[in-house]
């Protein structure tokens, strides 16, 4: 059952420079994504979780090549897209699309819904002709649960949830294989979140889509993903099957994150008390030596301060970057 992965990221890094030679302190380098490797298999949903500012959105934007990557390889269908130019990327764009977090900023306020959705089609299928493109737009509008008369309207006439449907329709226009969903529901009301999550699940089944689902809401991620990757300060600290990771986290950071998810009834759930992390997330400009998490880790030892743990497979489906991974209940 080893299917070739759809997307493989190998040691992907992304640095930003802040300041200039003339500003106080000079040029500083922010390591937003630091040596990240991951795989996405066809048909699955990979959840990418972490706190705000941990680099998960930056990673998503590197994978879609909205950003130039500073280092590493991105193999999409066995083709390295990390070094391609804008023009060379164009054919690949048809197979990998993106849904953005902010449904207000991601739709051009001066264009009609129909034109927004038709835009990718006009770029890649100009030869199809206007009539066929219009027919495809109607099909997409229907697919995401909007009405045909919405085509002629402007984005500001829609609610957040409807706008996100428009964004999804645009992303699906070219029949992509992979969708990078950058916090697609975090800007929406909870009731609307459920509708969009259901829509995404439904579309995945009908169109055999693969998702990279970026989110900070762990309960949403738990619901939608098959696998998760937990990020901290630009690096992946743990990956594995969603249920396994949620039930028995191996990295102390994952454990702390999961313990912070609100539970309706704590007593019945029978879980340990919430682990409150002390201190702030360190600055990615000057990250801590050794394990990046050692400054906030309950179990940190001296070796954590000097040696950086690598993401190592703890079983066939899991990997953790920790010198002292937590014991899972089964193996203990």
């Amino acid at each position, binding site marked *: 059952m080893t299917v070739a992965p759809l997307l493989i990221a190998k040691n992907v890094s992304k640095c930003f420079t802040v300041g200039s030679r003339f500003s106080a302190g000079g040029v500083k380098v922010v390591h937003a994504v630091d040596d990240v490797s991951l795989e996405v298999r066809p048909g699955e949903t990979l959840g990418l979780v972490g706190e705000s500012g941990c680099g998960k959105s930056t990673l998503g934007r590197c994978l879609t090549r909205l950003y130039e990557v500073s280092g590493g390889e991105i193999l999409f269908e066995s083709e390295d897209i990390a070094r391609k130019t804008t023009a060379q990327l164009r054919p690949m*764009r048809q197979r990998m699309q993106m849904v*953005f977090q902010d449904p207000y*900023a*991601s739709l051009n*306020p*001066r*264009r*009609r819904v129909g*034109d927004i959705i038709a835009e990718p089609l006009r770029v890649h299928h100009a030869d199809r002709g*206007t009539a066929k493109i219009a027919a495809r737009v109607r099909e997409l509008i229907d697919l995401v649960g909007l009405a045909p008369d919405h085509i002629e309207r402007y984005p500001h006439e829609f609610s957040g949830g409807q706008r996100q449907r428009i964004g999804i329709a645009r992303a699906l226009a070219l029949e992509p294989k992979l969708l990078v969903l950058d916090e697609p529901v975090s800007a929406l009301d909870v009731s609307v979140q459920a509708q969009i999550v259901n829509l995404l699940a439904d579309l995945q089944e009908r169109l055999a889509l693969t998702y990279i689902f970026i989110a900070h809401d762990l309960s949403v991620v738990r619901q939608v993903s098959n696998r998760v990757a937990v990020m901290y300060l630009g690096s992946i600290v743990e990956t594995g099957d969603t249920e396994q990771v949620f039930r028995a986290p191996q990295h102390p950071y994952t454990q702390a994150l999961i313990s912070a998810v609100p539970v309706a009834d704590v007593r019945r759930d029978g879980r340990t008390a919430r682990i409150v992390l002390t201190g702030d997330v360190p600055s990615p400009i000057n990250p801590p030596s050794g394990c990046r998490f050692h400054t906030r880790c309950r179990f940190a030892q001296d070796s954590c301060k000097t040696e950086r743990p690598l993401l190592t497979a703890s079983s066939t489906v899991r990997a953790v970057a920790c010198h002292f991974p937590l014991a899972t209940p089964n193996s203990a």
Partner: protein
Amino acid sequence: MVDVSMPSLAPQRRLFRLAGNTRVLAGGSVLALLVLVALTATWIAPFDPLDQDLAAQMQPPVFSAGTGSHWLGADSLGRDLLSRLIYGTRIALEVAVFAAMPTAILGTALGLIAGYYGGVLDAIISRLVDVWTSFPPVLLSIILVALIGTGLSSVVIAIIVIDWTRFCRVIRAETVKQRHMDYVDAAVVAGLRPLTILWREIVPNVLPLAVVLLTLEMGIAITVEAILSFVGLSVSSDTPTWGGMIAEGRTVVHQAPWIMAFPMLALLVTVLALNMLGDGLKAELDPVLR
């Protein structure tokens, strides 16, 4: 790229909606009237603006003891004020169109390039704007016209050379803001070429601002021409201009204040109408505010 055109309402419907805005309607009507006056000056002006009627020197307007032949009175050389005002409209509007339009196009283009491409291009253009705006504009225009010679084309050139920074600065800032919106990233992911993104996604969002600035610039251009006429650096003195009339009226302002007052009033009304139109358009061209 099959369909580059911006889809829009039928033009008539759009015009009707614009006319529904009081400020657009008021400003637009005044301007339409001025254009009409300028076009039909030869027929509607009661006198030749250069004809001297020495018997009517400094005759007051008809509503304050005037005789009736010169409705707004006559200047110190006995030339009919109303006719001179009517002919002055031509110069004012010519300047408004031929100076403000190229200024807007040049400044907007440079602002778009600086804001969209950033980097070295932005650095060069922005520094240029900084240097440019550090000169006092009126002084600069006087020096420029003195250097390249008087005349309407010199005035137009001076306005373009000086005022493009006004557009460049504002349009650059707006372009930078728009460029960082997610809809631009969505266009990149869709595979649009950079120039197409600039033209189809960013320009429509920046254009309303440019239109508003243009109407303001028209007012400024008319004022600058009046200033240059006032100091005698615009068209030759046998062409009637509002600025020239103000200059002539200034010398006799104690005996005949109306000679100076009427061209000033014309200038005021025109600039006010342009500003009102710009204000109204700003509200109307924004689909969210509409």
